[in-house]
C-alpha cells in the first residue's frame, strides 16, 4: 500500500533531503552555499536558424533571468551582393533580381524598380493608363499576400496556429492569380522598363473579383480569431512599444511607422501610378505596440481589397507598355517584318537602354515599408551604382533599442509584428 508523503518545506534544500529520505536513496546533499545567481547575466544566441526569426536573422541576447538587458541583431546571412550584380548588367536584366528582395511580394518589388528606372529615364509620365492600373493591381495583390503571411506567421509565433492555415489558403489563391498573370508563382519578373511583360489573360478580372469576395470573408474570420482573443491580446498589447519619436528617428516605414501613429503613406504623400485617383484610407495606430501594428496590417488589407475593386472596375483599355518600341522590346511579328523595329530590338538587346547621367531616388510604398532605389548613372545601359533602400533592413535596426526590458518570450511577438524579410534586409 502506497503511502502519500507530504513534503512541505519552504526551503528547497530541506525538501531535497526529505524527498531523498522517503525514496530511500542517498543523494549528495547540496552544499549550503549555492552560487549566487542573482546579478549574473547570461548570453543567449537566437538564430540564424530559428523558427521565429523567419529566415536567417540572428540576435545575440543578454539576459538577466528572463528579462532582456541587451540585444544585438546580426544580419547578413543572406547577403548575395545584389547591388554589385546590378552594376554589371543592363537595367532590364536586373528585374529578376528584384523578385528575390522581398520574396513575399515580388510583384511590388518589380513595380518599384521599374518606376525608379523610368524616373531616371524621364518616362514615368508616359506610361499608358492600362499599364498603371495593372501595376497598382500587382502592388495591392502583393500587399495582401505579404500581410496575410506576416499576419499568419505572427499569430503562429504567439500561439495561434489556426490563423496561419486560414491565411495560407488565401495566399494559395493569390499565387494562382499571379501564375495566370505572369507565368510564375513566385519569381514573377512581371514589369519591364516602360511597361509590363504581358496583358491580363482572358477571364482574369473575374477570377480576381471572385478571389476578393472570398478573401474579405477570410479577413473577418481571422479578425474573429485574433482581435478580441484574450491570449493574443495579452501577448501583444503594450509589448514592443515604439514611440512616435523613435519610429521617426529610426526611419521606420510602412505599417511599423503607421502603427506608431505617424500618418505617412507614400501612396498618399507622393502618389505614383494612379493612386491619386483611387479612394482608400491610411490606418494608424495609437500606442505603437505589437497589437497596433497587427491592427494596421489588418485594415491595410481591407483597404487594398477596396483599391483592387476600384481598379478592376475602372480598368481602361489600351496598350500595356509605352508603344514607341524604343523602351520596351517591340512585338516579335513587327521585329521580323519591319526594319525600324528590328533596329530597336537590336539596340535594346545589345546595349540596353541608354540612360542619361544623373542621380534619382524613388521610394514606393511596399508591404514591408518604403522600398527605395537610388540610381547613380554615368550614362549608358548599366547603372554606375544602384543602392536598394530595404525597409526590412531599416526596420530591424530598431531591435537593439526596443527589445531590452522585455521578457524572452516577447521577442517572437516583436519580431512577428515588425514583419521583415531577410532576403530584402541582406540583399
Amino acid at each position, binding site marked *: 500500500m502506497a503511502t502519500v508523503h507530504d513534503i512541505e518545506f519552504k526551503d528547497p534544500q530541506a525538501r531535497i533531503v526529505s524527498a531523498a529520505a522517503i525514496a530511500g536513496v542517498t543523494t549528495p546533499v547540496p552544499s549550503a552555499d549555492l552560487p549566487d545567481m542573482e546579478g549574473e547575466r547570461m548570453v543567449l544566441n537566437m538564430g540564424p536558424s530559428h523558427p521565429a526569426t523567419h529566415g536567417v536573422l540572428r540576435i545575440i541576447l543578454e539576459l538577466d533571468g528572463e528579462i532582456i538587458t541587451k540585444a544585438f541583431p546580426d*544580419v547578413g546571412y543572406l547577403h548575395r551582393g545584389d547591388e554589385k550584380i546590378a552594376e554589371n548588367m543592363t537595367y532590364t*536584366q536586373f528585374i529578376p533580381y528584384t523578385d528575390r528582395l522581398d520574396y513575399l511580394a515580388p510583384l511590388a518589388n518589380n513595380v518599384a524598380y521599374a518606376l525608379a528606372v523610368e524616373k531616371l529615364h524621364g518616362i514615368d509620365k508616359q506610361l499608358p493608363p492600362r499599364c498603371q492600373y495593372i501595376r497598382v493591381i500587382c502592388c495591392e495583390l502583393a500587399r495582401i499576400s505579404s500581410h496575410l503571411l506576416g499576419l499568419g506567421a505572427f499569430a503562429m509565433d504567439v500561439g495561434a496556429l489556426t490563423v496561419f492555415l486560414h491565411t495560407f489558403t488565401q495566399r494559395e489563391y493569390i499565387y494562382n492569380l499571379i501564375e495566370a498573370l505572369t507565368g510564375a508563382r513566385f519569381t514573377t519578373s512581371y514589369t519591364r522598363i516602360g511597361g509590363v511583360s504581358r496583358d491580363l489573360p482572358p477571364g482574369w478580372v473575374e477570377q480576381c473579383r471572385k478571389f476578393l469576395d472570398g478573401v474579405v470573408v477570410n479577413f473577418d474570420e481571422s479578425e474573429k480569431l485574433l482581435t478580441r482573443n484574450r491570449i493574443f491580446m495579452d501577448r501583444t498589447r503594450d509589448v514592443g512599444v515604439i514611440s512616435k519619436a523613435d519610429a521617426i*528617428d529610426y*526611419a521606420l516605414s510602412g505599417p511599423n511607422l503607421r502603427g506608431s501613429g505617424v500618418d505617412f503613406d507614400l501612396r498618399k504623400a507622393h502618389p505614383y501610378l494612379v493612386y491619386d485617383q483611387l479612394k482608400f484610407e491610411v490606418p494608424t495606430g495609437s500606442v505603437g505596440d505589437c497589437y497596433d501594428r497587427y491592427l494596421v496590417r489588418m485594415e491595410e488589407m481591407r483597404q487594398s481589397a477596396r483599391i483592387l475593386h476600384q481598379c478592376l472596375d475602372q480598368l481602361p483599355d489600351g496598350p500595356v507598355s509605352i508603344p514607341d518600341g524604343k523602351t520596351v522590346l517591340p512585338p516579335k511579328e513587327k521585329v521580323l517584318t519591319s526594319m525600324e523595329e528590328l533596329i530597336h530590338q537590336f539596340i535594346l538587346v545589345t546595349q540596353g537602354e541608354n540612360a542619361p547621367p544623373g542621380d534619382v531616388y524613388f521610394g514606393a510604398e511596399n508591404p514591408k515599408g518604403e522600398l527605395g532605389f537610388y540610381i*547613380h548613372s554615368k550614362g549608358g545601359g548599366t547603372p554606375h*551604382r544602384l543602392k536598394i533602400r530595404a525597409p526590412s533592413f531599416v526596420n530591424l*535596426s530598431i531591435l537593439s533599442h526596443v527589445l531590452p526590458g522585455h521578457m524572452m518570450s516577447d521577442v517572437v511577438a516583436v519580431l512577428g509584428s515588425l514583419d521583415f524579410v531577410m532576403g530584402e534586409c*541582406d540583399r
Partner: protein
Amino acid sequence: MPALEFARAIKAKFGELISEPAEFRGEVTLKVSDAERIAEVCALAKAEMNFDYLLDITSVDNYGDDPRFTVVYELYGLTHKFHLRLKTDVGEEKCELPTVTTVWRTANWHEREIYDMMGVRFRGHPDLRRILMWEGYPYHPLRKDFPLAGKPTDLPEVAFTKSAPLEGGPFVTVSGCKDSTVREPRSRTPESAPIQSIK
C-alpha cells in the same frame, strides 16, 4: 519649389561650403565641399528645416577619379514632405568623415554598411563593425576594383575562401561593347576590361 528654397536657405547659412543646388527629375541635390562639416549641415537641416527623417545613406565609388568616394544622404521631412539630397566627397587616403548617428539614430546601420561595403570610416560612430560581411573579411566588395567574381581569401576562420564558381556570373554585361564575347565575358576584373558605356 520649396525643396529648392530649403536648399537655398542652407546655402545662405554656410556660403561657400555648399554648392549651387542642382535639380534633376524634380530632386534637389546639394554638394558639401568639406566632408568634415557634413554632420553640422545635417544637424542644421534637421533642427531648422525639419528634415527629421533620414531615408538612406549611400556611397558611390568613382574609381579612377579623385576624390574617390562620394557619400550621399537622402533627407526627408515628414511634416513638409520634401526631399533633399546631400553629397560629399571623401578621398581615398583619408577615407573618413564624421558620423551623423548623433543627428538621426537610423544612420547607425547605414554607416556600418558603407564601412563594410566601401571601406569609408565614420568618426564617432558608436559601433563601427561590418554588418553584411563577416568579421575578419579582408575586402570591401562594392569597391570598383573588387571583381564581380569575388576574390579568394585564405583566412582560416572564414567560411568561404574560393571565388564564386560562375566566374563572374553568366549574365555579366558591359553594355555597348563591340561584340558579344567582349560584352558578356566569362569573367571580368576591373583591370582586364574597364567599364565602357555608350557615348
